[in-house]
């Protein structure tokens, strides 16, 4: 088991109180697994992704553990986490376009980063890997502003995976891209795993159809909790959680036309996480809700590798 998250809770401090953005999640990611982490805004997917590498100033670790390759990650301890960052857990951020220091030549910046992390000389490897994503080593001698957006994104992808991390988190890396660029980035991610540069991967996205293309499994979150995890194919074709089912049904596909088949969304809004209601958080919007839903259903395995948090999921 590469990654094992147990009952993780991370809260956001705000003026009106703590937002329970991540409220008790338990799951694991196997070696070599690419797990898509899907959810809408406010589902807690970004909080989960950030928690695994670096809590920002307003986030508080409220409980639970994270284990990577059998070692517990000290996620609440910013200093102690440094040892794991980059080497064990790494991140491709959403803001790739601005992730590089604008006043340093790229090669110099990477060199200084590596030296600071105690990695001897990574230049040769760096050049090799840039070539892998179709960049010449000339980019090392340039400033970020001299590169196009796509080039910057590729540089960041290479830098993030340079130390062969055990877990790579890709946070909404395709959301601002055109379809053709999305495909290329997604394929590159797949290539990282296939070439063994990273062991496992978490691809955070709001776009299920995209993550379906490259992920082995997909984990769906809703309102700070896990809804369903299943192999990608199963999740898309035979989802068991009513939320997943409605969500997948609401996605228009090429070929589906309004006149032929009118799709519908999910009525209602997710609950506020400042003071979330007890029990299943989807129950106000759920067509199947019944009395038992006042109690939080366990995230239970209903078939091999298929976990669902719903009393009605058999």
């Amino acid at each position, binding site marked *: 088991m590469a990654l094992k998250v147990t009952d993780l809770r991370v809260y956001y*401090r705000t*003026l009106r109180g703590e937002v329970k953005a991540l409220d008790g999640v338990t799951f694991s990611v196997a070696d070599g697994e690419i797990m898509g982490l899907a959810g809408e805004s406010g589902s807690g997917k970004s909080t989960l992704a950030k928690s695994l590498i670096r809590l920002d*100033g*307003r986030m508080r670790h409220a409980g639970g553990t994270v284990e990577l390759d059998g070692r517990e990650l000290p996620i609440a301890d910013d200093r102690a986490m440094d040892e794991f960052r980059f080497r064990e857990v790494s991140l491709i951020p959403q803001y790739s376009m601005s992730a590089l220091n604008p006043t340093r030549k790229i090669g110099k910046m990477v060199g200084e980063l590596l030296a600071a992390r105690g990695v001897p000389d990574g230049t040769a490897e760096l050049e090799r890997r840039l070539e892998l994503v179709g960049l010449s080593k000339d980019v090392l001698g340039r400033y970020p502003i001299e590169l196009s957006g796509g080039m910057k994104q590729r540089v960041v992808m290479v830098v993030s995976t340079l130390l062969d991390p055990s877990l790579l988190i890709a946070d909404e890396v395709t959301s601002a891209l055109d379809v053709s660029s999305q495909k290329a980035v997604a394929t590159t991610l797949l290539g990282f795993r296939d070439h063994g540069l990273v062991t496992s991967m978490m691809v955070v996205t709001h776009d299920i159809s995209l993550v379906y293309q490259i992920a082995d499994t997909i984990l769906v979150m809703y309102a700070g909790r896990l809804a369903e995890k299943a192999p990608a194919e199963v999740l898309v074709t035979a989802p068991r959680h009513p939320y997943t089912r409605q969500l997948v049904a609401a996605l228009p596909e090429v070929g589906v036309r309004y006149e032929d088949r009118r799709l519908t969304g999910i009525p209602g809004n997710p609950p506020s996480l400042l003071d979330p209601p007890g029990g299943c958080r989807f129950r106000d919007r759920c067509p199947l809700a019944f009395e038992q839903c006042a109690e939080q259903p366990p995230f239970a395995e209903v078939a091999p590798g298929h976990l669902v948090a719903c009393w009605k999921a058999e």
Partner: protein
Amino acid sequence: MRSEALHFALRNRKLVVGTVVITVFLVAGVVGPMTIGHKPADYVGPAMAPPSGEFWFGTTTFGQDVFAQFLYGLRSTFLVGVLGGVLASVVGMVVGFVAGYRGGWVDELLTMVTNIVLVLPALVVLLIVNAYLGVRSVGVQALFIGLTSWPWAARAIRAQTFSLRSRDFVDLARLSGVRTPKIILREIAPNMSSYLFLTFILLFGSAILIAASLDFIGLGPTDSVSLGLMLNNAARWSALQLGMWWWFVPPGAGITAIVGALYVMNVGLDEVFNPKLREM
């Protein structure tokens, strides 16, 4: 959202301290002179007397009451600050809004003018103007200060306007048939009201400092007392050599306290308006 700002405002030490200091001086400047029986230039006491129960800040070489001068001086200092600050803010806003909103050659032209006035050292220009034209009243002094100190404000407001202009709500207002001046006034300006206020505070402070320098050089108002003029007199009549510290310490301390309080208030407000700077 508004109550949130208030919540932080009341808990922001910098803002509270700054506001209290300003208020105290403002009240002293407005109410104080009414409590004093004589004019600041009257020869009311013994010459060169150190502070005492009767003359709190002592007297000048000629037996004038330094405390009375201080209170009257606060008044003109605030007046010059407010008038100069308001005028500079207005000019800066007009130039900044128009340049930022219209863009194109209007922007090019206004930016050019702004840069020219920006590069010219304001005090030195004021020296020339005041010396030749014999500017000798607080109002006119404030006018000239206002007319020379707006450029950085215009630049800052232009940049803000420029970024707000591309926001969709501006387009939506245009689609609603709202005319440009109204869009600037009712859509863009409210969004940077905190920023405009901060700009005004800084201009207020800098107007006070510029006026004090002019007064000190001897180009101050002839019809009233100001803190800068007090410094000028103290220096001219060798208060320094005579060890009359009570003559030159209060006016300088007054200016420093007012301008410093304005700056601290500014930071406090910035923290209130800008969640990023708030301490959690």
